């Protein structure tokens, strides 16, 4: 991988953020509130708190903590550092490093992860990966197996055998097993749908919006569109009890997100979520800073509609907002953006472990292989070096424990380009959290 050397990473990392680092105040019509960074705690605060906080922030983080301590708002740190590697209980199998689509922004380079010849995972590799996973999870615990690619259904035989094997083994060992798949749904058949239903898969379908938009962004290798095919094949799944989510990669071409969101909801997805394209093979499909500002405005428009509907008691399954509210209510605080390299690893077609499914074949995040086992020393190094408290400019950002530092893959390949976007989104979500909690106290449990 040579991407890192051609992207101007350093420019982004030098950016500094000024302002309080231990708390962030925000106002709503219900008063002044604050997010206390440690433990992601949300409080109503007196109106003069912001000025006192800013005054302390001038003197540095220690003074901020002193202020919080004097108010009885500082406890033991909620985040551990360094982190001990937890048990690996989730694997993502790249059962097919091949794809029948040719999306311009794909992190996997059409599924092959930059390799010359696309590969399928053989049954032996899949079986050993499943054995390895379930040997680690104690009885009574839970484990999950994700199928990604490439397009995983291009290797449906191994996908199914691995699923059955894992289900049998898990039942024998008293482990609760969950399955998930991320698919482009172009080769999904009725038989596949029945299989996914039978094993209660969480299904994520990559789809980029209305037909024209989608077909332009997610063409087949032959250059044709894939929208009609997907919609035709989704029928049995959307009619089932499965939770089928749509995942939309937002590119500069998405200029009417709310209409696109509602279009996908109308197709019958249980939830629809947006992921900004931050690190794309085709630079034209990657969002610039200015385009991220525009995206934020569009996301907020969707969030406002979400808020209006929720207050009225209507469902509006916009998953970015659902997730943000849920995490704010729970006070989710994370030292890392995701479980990659912690409880979650990717397995490549040839049986190599990596921090996650995006790092297949990438030496920066190699974590051992099936022959030699999981490299726990590498995981430990990874967790220590990726801890958000060691990252710049994260260390001094109020959103650090909500964000966790941003997707490792995107950050390592392009740097932190979306910080203002993330902060802007979280700021909006914080205020929305308070407003919804005031108007619909029953919404949060």
């Amino acid at each position, binding site marked *: 991988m040579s991407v890192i050397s051609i992207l101007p990473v350093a420019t982004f990392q030098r950016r500094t953020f000024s302002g309080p680092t231990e708390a962030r105040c925000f106002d709503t019509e219900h008063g002044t509130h604050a997010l206390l960074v440690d*433990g992601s*705690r*949300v409080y*109503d605060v007196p109106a003069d708190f912001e000025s006192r906080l800013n005054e302390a922030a001038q003197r540095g983080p220690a003074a901020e903590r002193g202020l919080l301590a004097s*108010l*009885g708002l500082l406890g033991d740190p909620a985040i551990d550092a360094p982190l001990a590697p937890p048990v690996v209980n989730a694997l993502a199998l790249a059962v097919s490093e091949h794809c029948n689509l040719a999306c311009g922004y794909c992190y996997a380079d059409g599924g092959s992860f930059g390799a010359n010849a696309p590969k399928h995972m053989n049954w032996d590799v899949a079986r050993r990966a499943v054995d390895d996973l379930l040997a680690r999870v104690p009885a009574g615990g839970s484990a999950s197996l994700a199928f990604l690619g490439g397009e995983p259904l291009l290797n449906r035989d191994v996908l199914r055998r691995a699923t059955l094997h894992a289900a049998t083994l898990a039942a024998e060992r008293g482990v609760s097993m969950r399955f998930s798949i991320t698919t482009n749904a172009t080769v999904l058949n009725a038989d596949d749908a029945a299989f996914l239903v039978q094993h209660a898969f969480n299904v994520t379908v990559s789809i980029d919006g209305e037909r024209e938009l989608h077909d332009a962004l997610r063409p087949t290798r032959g250059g044709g569109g894939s929208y009609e095919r997907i919609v035709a094949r989704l029928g049995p799944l959307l009619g089932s009890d499965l939770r089928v989510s749509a995942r939309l990669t937002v590119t500069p071409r998405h200029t009417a997100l709310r209409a696109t969101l509602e279009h996908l909801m109308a197709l019958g997805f249980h939830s629809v979520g947006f992921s900004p394209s931050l690190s794309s093979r085709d630079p034209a499909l990657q969002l610039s800073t200015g385009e991220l500002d525009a995206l934020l405005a569009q996301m907020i428009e969707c969030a406002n509609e979400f808020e209006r509907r929720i207050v009225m008691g209507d469902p509006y399954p916009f998953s970015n907002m659902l997730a943000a509210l849920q995490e*704010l209510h*729970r006070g989710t605080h994370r030292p890392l953006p995701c479980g990659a390299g912690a409880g979650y690893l990717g397995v490549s077609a040839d049986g190599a472990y990596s921090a996650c499914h995006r790092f297949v074949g990438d030496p920066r995040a190699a974590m051992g292989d099936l022959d030699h086992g999981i490299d726990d020393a590498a995981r430990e190094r990874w967790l220590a070096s990726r801890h958000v408290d060691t990252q710049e400019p994260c260390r001094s950002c109020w959103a650090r424990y909500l964000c966790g530092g941003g997707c490792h893959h995107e950050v390592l390949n392009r740097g932190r380009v979306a910080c203002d976007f993330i902060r802007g989104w979280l700021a909006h979500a914080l205020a929305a959290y308070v407003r919804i909690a005031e108007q619909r106290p029953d919404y949060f449990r």
Partner: protein
Amino acid sequence: MSAEFKPRNRTARAAVVGNPASARLDASVANCFPGLELDVRNLEGRFFPGLLFRVVTAPAAPVAQALPNQAGIRLAAVEWQNETMLPERSELPWVQTLLAQLSGDIGNTLSDGRWYLQWIEQSGKRISTEQPNGKPYDGETVWRFLRSIALEPLLTISLVRRDASEPRPTVQLSGYRRRYTTPAGVIAVDYEPGELTQSLCNPWQHDFRDCACYYWASNHPDVVMGEASGATIPGGDPKDPTTALTYLDWLRRDRSPAGAVAAPVTRSAAREDQIDHFEINQRWQELEFVIGGREIGAVYTPPSPDHAQPYADAAEMIHALEYELAPMELTLALEYLYSMFSLKSMRELPKDRWSTLADDLAAVRQSLIIVAASEMTHLRWVNQLLWELDRAGFYPHGKHYAPVLRHSAHGPIGLKGLHTPGLRVLDYEALDAYVRVERPGGKLDTAYARCVATLEQRDRYPSHLYELAVKIDSDGMLHYERFREMRRILNTYRGAGAPWPYLRDIRLGTPDETKVALDAYRSLLAALHDAYVNEAAQRFDAAQVAIASARKTMDVLNREAEALAGRGIGVPFFDVK
């Protein structure tokens, strides 16, 4: 944490230590110090802003090395930094003066040596903490002085350093007395978590376990029905009769299903399987809520409402109350009383056999009198319902309330008419008959349910009548369980064969033999008649006189019936028409 910071999300709420906002002093049951939930002396510990005091009581037997004159209100700390009454930016002159004193030289002076409260002055009146002879009052005494301080006006206090030579240094400070609660009644945030309880010696759980006096702590269930899980019959009781009818010890140690065995009948037998002092400190949360005599697990599902058929009109209901329900209550009360007199007294029990009999019989006698008294109460409520219906104008034209104090000993009553009234000794047949007549869903039950359904029609009847009917309807619920329990207890002696070792050999007496008892019973009915008539006419003083007379007569009747029973003679109550 200052009250101005209100936690919103879960992590913020979890970070709050100490009293939740719902902890209110007025919800406390502490009568005085140290109280049960908190030691109220600790409230006065912070009566003056910026200072923390402790109430010191002179030890009854001081050790030889103890310093003299320790008793009083001793200064424990000068704490002005986080004092909510002394915000640094306050514009109130008294706050700024006090802050300057406490954060300056006076604060330094007070941090050295043993300082005590010397006097308090408010509204020109001064209370000294020293007796006329110069000796200090005990801390408990001064604490009572402190409790008399008003919130306003400004207060001046003097502190004296006791471990200094004469003339002993003193310090005077002025400020307002603390308000111990917020305007919402919540304990002020100035009190640290644990501060109000730190001087309690004994957790309240111990009182809760052991208290047997007429005190709140003794007001907990003793025996309960187990949680109803699985299938239920209408009314909410479990379909499984074992679960439905086994009394469990509410304080039982083994709270697993295996521990759901019938509670021993006596306190001493029950004691060893109950959770003990140390355990109750740790496990009191496991004690279940009890509603309607039954433990409630995670979720309480109210029983589905009865769907009884309302009476066609008030006249039909009044007729049922006069000719069925009131007579049935009196009949049952008399049957149960007769049975109760058939039980042997402690003196009559065999000394050499049946070591558990005395306790068992005490339990049965107690249950029987409770049920009989409950029927008597119902009789009164039925009469009350009748006179209230009359007062509200529901009696048929030309008719008015007259007390109903007759029994219905002629003809079957109860469930499907299966109960034939009769004065019986409490043998196993009688127990079976009582279980049958009190069975839920029987006539007794449904008759009141019909009254409730009738009076529930709020557009037709005033609400107080409905409430009265509900009271009767819901009171009878435990009679059935009580008789089942009596039968279970007495089954132990079934193997002994007749004559049953717990029963007196009783026959119905003749009118001559029982003249005193029957006369007393007649006087009792007359007194009750008088009482009901007066109460119906709202002549409550006269009613009270009559009720007092009825009570006295009941004593006479009780003594006489007991004496007769001891001689093998039963009172023929049904002879009184």
